[in-house]
C-alpha cells in the first residue's frame, strides 16, 4: 500500500514536471551542436554553437539572385521539389499553399522551394510553375542553382535527395518542410505530405514569429 502511494506520488511529480516543460513554449533547435568556451569581459563562459544553414547561391523565379543573406530578418520554410515530379510534390505544394495563404501578408516570413532538377527547371519553367500556383510577390521563391551544390545544401537541411532512374520522375527525395529561424537554425521538420503536420508547422511558425528578441540574440 505504502509503495502504491509512493509510486503515485512519483507519477504526480513526473506529471508536474511535464507540464512545467510544456509551458516552456520555445521550439527545439535541431542538428549537431558544439559546446565551446569563450571569453566575455575577461571571464570564461560556456556557449553552444548550433548547426546553421550555410551560404548558397541560387536564382529565383524572377531571375534574381538569392543567397543565404536574402533571407536575413525572416523566418522561413524550405523544401526540395521539381516541377515535373509526378509523386509527392503535388501533395506537398497543395499543403504549402496553405502555409503561403496564412503568411502572405507577413513581411518577415518566407517560403523557399529548391529545385533538385535544375537542368529542366530553368527560371522560365519555375516562373510558369509559380504563376500557375497563383504565387505573386516575394513570399514564396522557387530556386534554381548548381545541382551538386543544392544536393549538398539539402543535407544541411537534414533532407535526403538523390537521382534515381528507377524512381517516378527520375529523383527520390523526402517531402519535409523545414522551419528555419532568423539565425538560420533548424527549429522544426514536418512531413509536407501530411495535412496534420502542416497544421502543426503553421502553429509553430506563429510561435517562432513571436519568439522574444533576447532569445534570438543569444
Amino acid at each position, binding site marked *: 500500500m505504502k509503495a502504491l502511494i509512493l509510486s503515485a506520488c512519483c507519477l504526480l511529480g513526473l506529471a508536474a514536471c511535464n507540464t512545467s516543460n510544456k509551458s516552456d513554449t520555445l521550439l527545439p533547435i535541431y542538428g549537431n551542436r558544439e559546446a565551446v568556451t569563450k571569453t566575455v569581459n575577461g571571464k570564461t563562459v560556456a556557449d553552444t554553437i548550433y548547426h546553421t544553414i550555410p551560404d548558397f547561391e541560387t536564382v529565383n523565379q524572377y531571375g534574381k539572385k538569392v543567397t543565404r543573406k536574402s533571407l536575413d530578418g525572416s523566418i522561413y520554410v524550405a523544401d526540395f521539389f521539381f516541377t515535373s515530379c*509526378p509523386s*509527392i510534390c503535388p501533395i506537398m505544394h497543395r499543403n504549402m499553399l496553405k502555409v503561403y495563404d496564412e503568411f502572405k501578408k507577413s513581411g518577415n516570413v518566407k517560403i523557399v522551394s529548391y529545385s533538385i532538377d535544375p537542368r529542366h527547371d530553368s527560371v522560365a519553367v519555375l516562373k510558369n510553375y509559380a504563376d*500557375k500556383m497563383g504565387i505573386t510577390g516575394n513570399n514564396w521563391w522557387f530556386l534554381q542553382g548548381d545541382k551538386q551544390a543544392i544536393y549538398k545544401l539539402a543535407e544541411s537541411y537534414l533532407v535526403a535527395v538523390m537521382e534515381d532512374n528507377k524512381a517516378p520522375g527520375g529523383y527520390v527525395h523526402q517531402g519535409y518542410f523545414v522551419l528555419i529561424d532568423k539565425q538560420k537554425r533548424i527549429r522544426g521538420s514536418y512531413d509536407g505530405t501530411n495535412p496534420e503536420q502542416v497544421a502543426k508547422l503553421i502553429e509553430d511558425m506563429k510561435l517562432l514569429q513571436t519568439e522574444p528578441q533576447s532569445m534570438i540574440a543569444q
Partner: protein
Amino acid sequence: MKFTIIAIFFIAVITVVYSCQSDEKLEYMRYYTTGQELYKTRCQNCHGAQGEGLAALIPPLTDSVYLKTNSNKLACYIKNGLKLPILVNGKPFNGEMPPSGLAPVEIAQVLTYVQNNFGNHSGLHSVEQVNKELEACN
C-alpha cells in the same frame, strides 16, 4: 421479446432488399470500392482527396459536364496520359498527366469511382465500354 421480433423483421427486410439489388447494382458497387482504392494510390496525390486538383497546374475532377461530354475519351487519357490544352470548370489547363499503367478493368473501376464521386453521378463505366474506347485511342 418485442425487440427480438423487431430485429428479425429488420434483418428480413434487409435480406430481401439486398437480394433484390440487380446484378448491375452489385457490379457497380464492386467497381466503385476497388476504384476508390485505386484512386487513393494512383491519382489522389495529383488530383487531391476531394478531386480538387492543384491551382492551375492540375485540373479538378469536379466538372461533371466535362466528364460527361468526354466520357468516352477518359479511358485513353488514363491509359496513355494527357498533354492537351483543356478547359475544366471554365479554367484552362495545359499540363501533363503521365500514362497510368493501369489494366483496362482497373481503368473502368477508377473511372466508375471518379464519375460517381466529387459531385458526379454517371453510373457504371464498364470494362466492356473501356475496351471499346481504348480501341479508338489515337
